[in-house]
Structures are given as structure tokens and as C-alpha cells.
């Protein structure tokens, strides 16, 4: 089989994302999030993006801070017990600049499943007594066999799944280490997949353990070599979250100037990935 390279630079790959498109972001909270890609979207001054994630943090907040996002479908956006609320997401929603599409994490999964399964909506257990369905507009339907009422979650079909992975080859095969979260489902639910990867490896790497290739090449449209691409978040097995760098971002994100400084500080590492050193002053 001929090697079909899908390798692009980070700016080239980010240019594939058009204003107004829906993109789902891989990882969860501060683990294996596509940070470098989110920063590049901000640098390219994207507008109107509609973001999808079960539980987001830096990536979602940064795209809100940059004015790139107009909608966030998620179950949770925040910095957990470490830093609490996501300041720019919060500000965006409170000001009306960002539409929060209130989900439970499981309804995001259900919507992605509907897309992956080629069906218009996916029934989901739960939600009884919650105000979420009323606000978001989830409808109940009667099961045709039992008559039982079940909430149906409309399909979520992002234009792109943007996933940061430890290992990929130039064709787009990818292996994730540690929690896979919704990345695998997102790769099936989206129209196209953009990978950013810590290491670009030979295809033989995947042939040795094919059962560990969670994302096969035929689903993938672009591959970016992006070492450190999840920083300041974690990317198992390579590096842990950088708490001080996250704190620094939170401080910087409060002002346009601070955000610009933040993007500038990371630009060299993002664009010259082989450097890939940690942020926040740590070695």
C-alpha cells in the first residue's frame, strides 16, 4: 500500500477549520486536550465556532476568551477543584456572547452516538426531574413497544473532531494511551478528523498491536506533528498537567492584552514543535 501522507503544519491544519463550523475537542478536562490547536484557532482569529465536549477546561475557555466560540455544547466547563470556574467561558455565557447548550455529559455522548450510528436521534436513560431537557429542547418520545417515554437526543455531527494523541503515523492511524474519553466516538461522529500528535511514528508501530489503534487512518483527514500539543494540560504517557502554567493562563485570560501575550508566549513552541518544552518555567 502506498504511503498517503496527511501531514500538515499546525497553521495549515487550523486553516481547514472554517468560521462558523462545529468542532468537537478531544480529551477531558486538563488531560489530552488539543491545546496547541485551540491556540492556533485563536491566532487565526476564527469566529463563530460551535464547540462540543463532555467536560472541557483550558481549550474551551481559551476559545471563549479569544472570541472565537459562539456556542458550547457540554456537560461541564471548568478547572475542577484546582481553579474552579472557567472565567472566560463564564463571562461569555453571562454576557450572551456564548450560547451554552446545556447537556449532561451522557447526552453529548448520545448525540455523538446518533451521528456515528447514522440515526437522527438517540434515546437516553435519565434526565427525569431535570430542567436540562426543557432548556435545551430535548424531546421525549414514546417507545413503540412499551409506550415508555424516553428522551431522544438529536444527533451532534461536528464538521471536525480535533484530537490530540500520543502516537500517529502520516496516514492517520492513531494510538491513545490512558483514558480515551470521547475521542474514539468523536472520530466516528464527525465529518472529518484532524489529529495533533506527540510523536509521528512508522505504520509498523500500529501493525505490531493493531488492537491498540483506536483511530484508523481511513477516518482521518489531517495529521499535525505537535509535541507538547496538550500543554499546559497532560498527555499520558509523556507529561503531566502544568498547574502553574494553567494558573498563568487564567490570569492572562482576563484581558485582551493578556490573552495576546499568552498566545504569543506559546507561538514559538506551537509552530516549532520539535522544541516542545514545558511552559511555566519548569524544565
Amino acid at each position, binding site marked *: 500500500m502506498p504511503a498517503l501522507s496527511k501531514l500538515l503544519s499546525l497553521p495549515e491544519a487550523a486553516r481547514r477549520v472554517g468560521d462558523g463550523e462545529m468542532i468537537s475537542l478531544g480529551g477531558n478536562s486538563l488531560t489530552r486536550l488539543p491545546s496547541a490547536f485551540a491556540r492556533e484557532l485563536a491566532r487565526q482569529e476564527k469566529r463563530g465556532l460551535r464547540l462540543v465536549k463532555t467536560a472541557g477546561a483550558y481549550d474551551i475557555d481559551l476559545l471563549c476568551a479569544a472570541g472565537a466560540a459562539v456556542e458550547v455544547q457540554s*456537560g*461541564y466547563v471548568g478547572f475542577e477543584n484546582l481553579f474552579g470556574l472557567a472565567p472566560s467561558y463564564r463571562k461569555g455565557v453571562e454576557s450572551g456572547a456564548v450560547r*451554552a447548550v446545556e447537556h*449532561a455529559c451522557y447526552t453529548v455522548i448520545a448525540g455523538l452516538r446518533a451521528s456515528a450510528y447514522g440515526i437522527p436521534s438517540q434515546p437516553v436513560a435519565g434526565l*427525569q426531574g431535570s430542567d436540562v431537557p426543557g432548556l435545551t429542547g430535548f424531546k421525549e418520545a414514546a417507545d413503540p413497544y412499551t409506550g415508555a417515554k424516553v428522551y431522544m437526543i438529536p444527533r451532534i455531527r461536528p464538521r471536525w473532531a480535533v484530537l490530540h494523541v500520543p502516537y500517529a503515523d502520516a496516514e492517520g492511524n492513531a494510538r491513545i494511551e490512558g*483514558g*480515551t*474519553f470521547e475521542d474514539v466516538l468523536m472520530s466516528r461522529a464527525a465529518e472529518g478528523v484532524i489529529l495533533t500528535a506527540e510523536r509521528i511514528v512508522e505504520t509498523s508501530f500500529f501493525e505490531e498491536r493493531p488492537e491498540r489503534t483506536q483511530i484508523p487512518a481511513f477516518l482521518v483527514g489531517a495529521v499535525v506533528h505537535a509535541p507538547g500539543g496538550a500543554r499546559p494540560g497532560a498527555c499520558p504517557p509523556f507529561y503531566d*498537567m502544568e*498547574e502553574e502554567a494553567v494558573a498563568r493562563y487564567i490570569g492572562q485570560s482576563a484581558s485582551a492584552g493578556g490573552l495576546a501575550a499568552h498566545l504569543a508566549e506559546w507561538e514559538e513552541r506551537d509552530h516549532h514543535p520539535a522544541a516542545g518544552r514545558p511552559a511555566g518555567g519548569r524544565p
Partner: protein
Amino acid sequence: MKREISPEKRRAADRMAVFLARQIRDGEIVFHGVASALPMTAVGVARRLHAPGLTYLNIPGGVDARPAHLPGSTVGAQLLEGARAVFNLAEIFDLSARGALDLAFLGGAQIDSRGDINLSYIGDPRRPKVRLPGGAGSACILPTARRTVLWRTAHDPRSFPERCAWVTASGRVDRVVTPLCLFRKEGGRLVIESRHAGVSAEAVREATGFDPGPCEEAPETPEPTPAETAALQAADPGGVRFLEF
């Protein structure tokens, strides 16, 4: 990153971790979600003491992980250390959806008299005064898990209103653990089960936005035993539990 924490808060954290641990029964399948440093700690305590046969599920998917050090994020890869299997987040939700998850720990920014929780909005959700982080899995877990234990580190009338103006999730609440007391759900309402040592009936009443029931008669929550305290230190030597304070 080191944080300062007062001895009082330190004591509250230790108590809450232990009291949460006591809610776990041996052999149960137990899950906690994101931003859940106290339940993460509680699992480590329970399995060292009365619940060695629990099954522990978490967001990265580790089954029965035994991390040497708990991570500051409850999504950290440490929660896969020593795991025997990986059971992905979507699968955990499925497990709950089909009625096979024994116990879930869920937090609430507000917990009301019915045990309903708000993690979403203060004010009009279409233009909120405060956008909270969102309920994560709770709206689907709370109605489907066999039992749910709630916790909140702040116990004040705003956190415990008669009714949440906005309900993120509603369902099968069994117990609520706070720095002041335990509640159980009875006849559709939260009622006090016990007061922690040194907490007056009046203090509970004043801190609670709904009628908490017979506070005077409520027994004292047994203080952490030496064995529990030792298990707590072993489970969380780094003090991740203090992050919630």
C-alpha cells in the same frame, strides 16, 4: 502548587472524606466524576477498611486503580495506575443507565430540600447571573444509579435552599455529607441524620435554607476513628482532598 489551608478546613476535609467513605458498602460498584477530590479520597479510605471488595470506576476509565498519589484533577492518568481493566466513561454512563451502578458520588453547587441539585445557573439561565460549570453526568446518573451520595463543602442557606430555582439533576439521593452534618432522604425530603461533633442543632438550622428536621434529637456523627484517620493518610498522603476547600 501549595495552598494554605486552615486547621479548621483541614479537619472538615478529613471528616468529610471519612464520612463519605462510610457510605460505601463492601462489594459495591462505585463511581465519582470530575472535580471530586473528596469522593476520590473516600474510595481509597473505604477499600482500606470496610469495603475491600468495592469496584472503583472513574473518568479515565480505570477499574480498581490504586494510585500511589491522588491527582489534583480527577481526570488524571494516575487514576489508571494498577487498574485491572479500562471501562470507558461512556460505558460507566451506560452501566448507570441500565441500573447496574451501585453508588455514585455527585456534588452540587446547590442542594435543595428534595435533594435536587443545581450545578448550572444562578439567575435566568438564558442570561445568567452566574454560569456555573454544568452538571457533568449528574442529570443522567442521579435518576438511574441505585444510590447517590451528595456532598458540598460549603454549608450555608444559599447552598441549601428550599428549592433550587434551576434543577440540573434530580433522583435517587441516599445521603448528603456537609461540613456540619449528614442528611438522608426520607419521604421525598432531606432530613438530618446526624450532627458532626461540636456542631449545634442551631448551627445546622441556621446554615440550612430549608427545615432540616429534628436537629436537636439528631445523634452525633461518630468522629473519624484512628483506623479511619490512618487509612485517610494512606489513601491521600498528598492532601488532594484539601483542594475542595
